[in-house]
């Protein structure tokens, strides 16, 4: 298959950066996800790898070969578009066969490979209908088939689930991931949906403002976000972030509550804030737990709202405006609006960030 390297690749439109200089290596057979809000440069990066977009500077290597300025058709890559890009006036079979015909592959071989990929994606029943008549899910399957049939070195996918109706998205997500497991083809997948990124990515490149914020496995990106942007972007709702004071091992909430920082964090915080100073405490909704009886190290809050999410409930607690934190609770917890409660934090999942640099404070041992 293929390893793809981006060396100091950047893209500028006039004065402003669409993609700031970045280095990225996509390993052979890896499923790498480019994740970020719209306008963060993820699609431009993908299009530069495909050659549909020119590079302002830097170089792109495919299996060690410099392809920076080579025409997309010579890069042996397949591109799956968000809006399917199927030729509207050709039947499904012609659409799938087309890339092979363009490479003058003999007719018998074309038919064999088309049938093989059509069986793989179970779209035998669609072969002679027009793309326009298909459901969005089927259209995307045909688009995948057209990409697969060429057995390219790498697959580039630009938000393929973006245009699908809600109930196709879950099934197609699993199907694409399963296809990747079968073919173990190097894939670069662009999306703005962080759930898709977590579910599919071997590794995730979180981007924002034309810059790479963090590259890591779903676990790293979820549990150890590199900065506030990643902390807030990953997870729905994102990580709770509260700005407060830190002194002698205690975090002081804006309203004065004191929370004793877990022992293993103390050295890192003392060093980072040299003793004391402003810091941002971060914790995931599932790491908070509403306690019934008053034990030590709990935080006071009033119930701002609580809502049911099917398998669990989500409590929105006011810990002193402007902060409302979200705590996950089991199904049948029911609190009245404005009721006073107190909650504790799972020490293993507590995180801290520098208020100015917005970077995460790292503990030494891991």
């Amino acid at each position: 298959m293929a390893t793809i390297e981006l060396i100091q690749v950047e893209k500028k439109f006039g004065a402003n950066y669409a993609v700031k200089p970045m280095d990225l290596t996509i390993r052979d057979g890896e499923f790498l996800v480019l994740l970020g809000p719209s306008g963060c440069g993820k699609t431009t990066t993908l299009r530069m790898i495909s050659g549909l977009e020119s590079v302002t500077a830097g170089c792109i290597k495919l299996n060690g070969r410099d392809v920076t300025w080579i025409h997309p058709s010579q890069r042996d890559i397949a591109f799956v578009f968000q809006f399917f890009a199927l030729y509207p006036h050709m039947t499904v079979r012609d659409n799938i066969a087309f890339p092979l015909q363009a490479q003058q592959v003999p007719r018998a071989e074309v038919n064999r490979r088309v049938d093989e990929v059509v069986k793989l994606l179970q779209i035998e029943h669609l072969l002679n209908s027009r793309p326009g008549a298909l459901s969005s899910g089927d259209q995307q399957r045909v688009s995948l088939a057209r990409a697969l049939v060429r057995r390219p070195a790498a697959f580039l996918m630009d938000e393929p689930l973006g245009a699908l109706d809600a109930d196709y998205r879950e099934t197609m997500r699993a199907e694409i991931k399963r296809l990747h497991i079968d073919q173990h083809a190097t894939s670069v997948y662009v999306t703005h949906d962080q759930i898709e990124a977590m579910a599919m990515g071997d590794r995730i490149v979180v981007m924002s403002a034309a810059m790479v914020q963090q590259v890591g496995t779903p676990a790293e990106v979820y549990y150890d976000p590199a900065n506030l942007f990643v902390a807030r972007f990953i997870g729905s709702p994102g990580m709770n972030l509260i700005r407060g004071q830190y002194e002698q091992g205690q975090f002081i909430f804006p309203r004065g509550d004191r929370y004793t920082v877990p022992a293993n964090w103390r050295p890192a915080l003392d060093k980072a804030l040299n003793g004391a100073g402003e810091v941002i405490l971060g914790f995931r909704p599932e790491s908070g737990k509403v306690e019934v009886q008053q034990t030590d190290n709990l935080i006071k809050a009033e119930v701002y709202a609580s809502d049911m999410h099917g398998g669990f409930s989500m409590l929105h607690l006011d810990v002193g405006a402007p902060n409302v934190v979200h705590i996950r609770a089991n199904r049948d917890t029911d609190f009245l609006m404005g009721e006073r409660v107190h909650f504790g934090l799972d020490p293993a999942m507590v995180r801290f960030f520098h208020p100015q640099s917005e970077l995460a404070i790292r503990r030494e041992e891991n």
Partner: protein
Amino acid sequence: MTTTFEQTGPRTPVVESIRVDKLSPRSRLAGRARAIIATVLALISLIPVFWIIRTAFIPLNEVTAIPPKIIFTPSLEGLVGLLTDDRILSESALAAKRNDPNLSFVDRVMLNAGREVVGSSPYASQLVNSVVIAGASTILSVFFGLLSAYAFSRFNIPGAGDLLFFILSTRMLPPVVVTIPIFLMYRSLGLHDTHIGLILLYTVFNLSFSVWLLKGFIDEIPREYEEAALVDGYTRLQAFRKIVLPQALTGIAATTVFCLIFAWNEYAFALMLTSQNARTAPPAIPSILGSGGIEWNTIASGVLIFLIPVVIVTFALRKYLLRGVTFGAIRK
């Protein structure tokens, strides 16, 4: 509300992307060649217009130069000749007139063309007729057109499709076919050769166009705005006035201009339904050529005065040209 940290990043969203196949040196060269050919073709297609402008301002004696002169000292002889009645003067009368102290600018212009101004020419009044008739008929056709366009756009009227088809097909009729019966009707009603007669006819002629074009514009205004106004306590008519009209202004302006152009350019009806009193410019222009022999600069100025407003307005309308010439059917 959780504190949200403002996201840094490029303020202007990056939208424009240049496809690599458009960037390769070969295609850039092809692009430039295309641009040059297009520009040359455009200039060639406008040579006739440039030539008319030149002929309108060339003095009479240089009109018949062979080869046709390009560089000359422009003069208003053509223009003044067009708007005035004048007589050729003999050499002696010409000399005597020259040193008459209180010569007006107009007299002096005609003098060096060897002519004396006698009175104003009919063309001026025909231009006025054109303006009055085109203007009045446009106001009426846009007014009625707007009301009907709104009704067709917002309500599903039984048989609306056929009704709209009927309205459009009246515009497809060859003018000559309709003129014969109207000529007889107007003669018996005393509407022949009257301003009101032609205004009404042009109103109907433009009405089908303005209904279709305005319906296209109103269709683009989301219905939710009016419905929100209804729910907020306004009647349908008030919602139309306060919410739909302000948003349709550009559409109304574009339609008005199109109607003006069509009424201004119309020739067949004017030729057959007017003779003297309500005569507009188009049927009058050929008659100028008939009378004069070689006063080309006069004819060219007549043509020029008539075309200049249309050329200017076309530039103002360029965004809506596609819509205009296809009755609002094609809008992209």
